[in-house]
């Protein structure tokens, strides 16, 4: 969809945002993208949404000063802006005045330059450093002084006598290379400070020098448990921008594939959570069933994990002749598997005690922190894009949006298990009537997207996965930004873990279900 935006001067930005929040009920900050517009200066695009009315407003703020770009913070209005603004600072060097914690978040603290600036040369200034990653206990906060000069103030992250435990980056239960610094009071958690970037691969910067079909390849490698959906989102935004309408067959294929991917991801969620809690048998059960999904993928796409299936205007290859039969065989097997999961783990007293009432997130919190997907739904937030703004074939299938009210670890666990069943239902309704037609629209050999700003999102395995695309009419994108599904979840860790036991950090992290390369991009 094309993004229409209002431009607001930096001086009025904070006032205007407060007004939108209060009068229009804009309580969900969907996405925040830092931009380098060259001559025009730096800036940020804010995408707001009201969870009550569904209305969306997009705001653009530009700071023309390329030497010292500053903007007022909105982190006091939307909690999640806290981490988004740090990301923008890290990559573009825009200073947000009033933000309590202006530290780099992905790159090393001694990194030189801001890689997403168009004139930055990150490779030249930053050779491989083999000394330990520096981590300071202090941070800075900038205020705008009376005379228009920036005033620097120190802020403390950890006090001198805080007891801080490092968890990660090499830890089997952080689901990748994530690093938490945890301050403890006895066994209770006082504060969690996530350090990201141990798998930051610079995908957004690489995309700027790739043609559109080339950019597709990297999406699968971000959230590899949502490979189909990620690529789907990028294809969708390019197709919408170019005005390409895909055939009905493609729509149905994409829907089925997305759901299979969701099942794959949720099974892996179950397996890993059980493994983290010490139930190795359940882990093996989960992987046994997951292999069946991978077999189906492999026949049609050729890959097990990295699928490379969606393309601009369709899909890479037609369905394998065995596809329908295999999927039909899989559905009852999965149902049986689900029953086994419930028998072996859901009812288990130990599992219950470790999950029930632990790590509670309220509905207001999940909205403020933008935790979409299963985590949001476990707290009673109806955020399923398949229901809110149905795309592809989702408007013609009947399924339930699973929500819970309690928002604890157990609710988050149950949401995923029940969603597997809903996904099976969706597949069942579609598998017998996949329409005939072409699986790939005819596209020009060189794909150029008309000038403009676009955004499109799909419901990924763990929340809203969106792609922000700005094009200048070239065969290369001017800027691509991915709305990561995991970043809000990691940001929520601090809030949700406070007051809980350190041992529960593993359970809570497991049930939030993030994938680290998707956070770091």
């Amino acid at each position, binding site marked *: 969809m094309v993004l229409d935006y209002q431009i607001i001067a930096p001086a009025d930005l904070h006032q205007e945002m407060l007004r939108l929040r209060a009068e229009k009920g804009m309580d969900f900050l969907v996405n925040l993208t830092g931009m380098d517009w060259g001559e025009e200066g730096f800036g940020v695009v804010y995408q707001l949404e009201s969870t009550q009315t569904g209305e969306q407003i997009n705001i653009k703020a530009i700071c023309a000063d390329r030497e010292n770009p500053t903007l007022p913070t909105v982190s006091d209005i939307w909690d999640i802006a806290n981490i988004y603004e740090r990301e923008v600072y890290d990559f573009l060097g825009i200073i947000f005045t009033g933000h309590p914690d202006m530290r780099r978040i992905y790159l090393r603290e001694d990194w030189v330059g801001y890689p997403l600036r168009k004139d930055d040369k990150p*490779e030249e200034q930053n050779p491989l450093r083999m000394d330990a990653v520096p981590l300071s206990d202090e941070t800075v906060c900038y205020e705008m002084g009376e005379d228009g000069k920036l005033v620097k103030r120190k802020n403390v992250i950890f006090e001198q006598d805080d007891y801080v435990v490092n968890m990660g980056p090499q830890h089997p239960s952080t689901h990748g290379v994530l690093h938490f610094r945890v301050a403890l009071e006895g066994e209770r958690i006082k504060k969690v400070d996530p350090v990201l970037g*141990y798998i930051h691969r610079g995908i957004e910067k690489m995309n700027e020098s790739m043609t559109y079909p080339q950019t597709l390849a990297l999406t699968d490698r971000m959230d590899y448990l949502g490979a189909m959906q990620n690529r789907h989102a990028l294809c969708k935004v390019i197709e919408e921008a170019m005005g390409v309408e895909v055939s009905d067959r493609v729509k149905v294929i994409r829907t089925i594939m997305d759901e299979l991917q969701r099942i794959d991801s949720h099974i892996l969620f179950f397996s890993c959570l059980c493994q983290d809690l010490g139930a190795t048998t359940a882990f093996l059960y989960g992987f046994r069933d997951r292999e069946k999904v991978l077999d189906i993928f492999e026949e049609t796409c050729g890959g*097990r994990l990295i699928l490379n299936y969606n393309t601009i205007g369709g899909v890479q290859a037609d369905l394998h002749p065995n596809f329908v039969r295999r999927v039909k065989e899989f559905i009852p097997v999965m149902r049986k598997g689900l029953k086994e999961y419930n028998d072996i783990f859901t009812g288990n007293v130990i599992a219950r005690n470790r999950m029930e009432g632990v790590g509670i997130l309220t509905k207001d919190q999940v909205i403020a922190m933008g935790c979409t997907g299963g985590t949001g739904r476990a707290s009673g937030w109806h955020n399923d894009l398949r229901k809110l703004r149905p795309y592809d074939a989702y408007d013609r299938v009947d399924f339930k949006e699973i929500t819970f009210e309690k928002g604890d670890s157990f609710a988050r666990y149950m949401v995923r298990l029940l969603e597997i069943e809903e996904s099976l239902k969706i597949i069942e309704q579609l598998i017998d009537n996949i329409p005939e037609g072409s699986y790939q629209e005819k596209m020009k050999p060189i794909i150029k997207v008309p000038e403009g700003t676009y955004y499109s999102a799909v419901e990924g395995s763990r929340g809203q996965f969106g792609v922000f695309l700005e094009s200048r009419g070239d065969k290369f994108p001017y800027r691509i930004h991915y709305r990561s599904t995991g970043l809000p979840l990691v940001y929520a860790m601090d809030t949700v873990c406070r007051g809980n036991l350190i041992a529960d950090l593993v359970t809570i992290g497991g049930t939030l279900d993030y994938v680290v390369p998707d956070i770091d991009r």
Partner: protein
Amino acid sequence: MKKPKIKSIPYEEFNDNETFESLVQKLNENGVNIVVKSLDDLFDWGRSNSLWPLTFATSCCGIEFMAVCAARYDIARFGFEVTRNSPRHADVILVSGTIVKKMAPVLKRLYDQMADPKYVIAIGGCSISGGPFRKSYHVVMGVDEIIPVDVYVPGCPPRPEAFLYGMMQLQRIVKVENFFGTTNRKERDPFKKEYEERSEKILASQEEA
């Protein structure tokens, strides 16, 4: 030359036996007497069938590693199932996934913490050469820039069968080593010197910068 046997697979069916043979030659340069050699064989038989991997995964390839550990591919058939969470207990590190500049010092430290004799397998395009992220500003172009690699397993991600094949190749290397002669005495290891020289070069280039 001794031809190590891995399960029931004939020696000729392994690819790239030339590299392997040149490696064997280098390892055996010093020579040992027959009693020690027999002891070596016994030790190597035991070691090669109980290589404990470190649980180390940074991204996509790590998920395939989990699949290799699970029921269908069952890494336990080879004695690799004892995945260790601490580098101090591990014999082999499977670098599965992209290594970026921020992670590089961590990986180096993990490697240094492992007890000798230790082995490295580079899994996937990323850890061999940067893979699909070769143009990136934040990715290390191959882990052999930081730590010495014994076996490379190409793929993106490699299939589970390729993982197993790579691990069998490692078993072959372990089987032909002279445990008492060289492996156990690092000062005589022909590869150790190469590695140290390379590390020094990286450090020197850093100081320049």
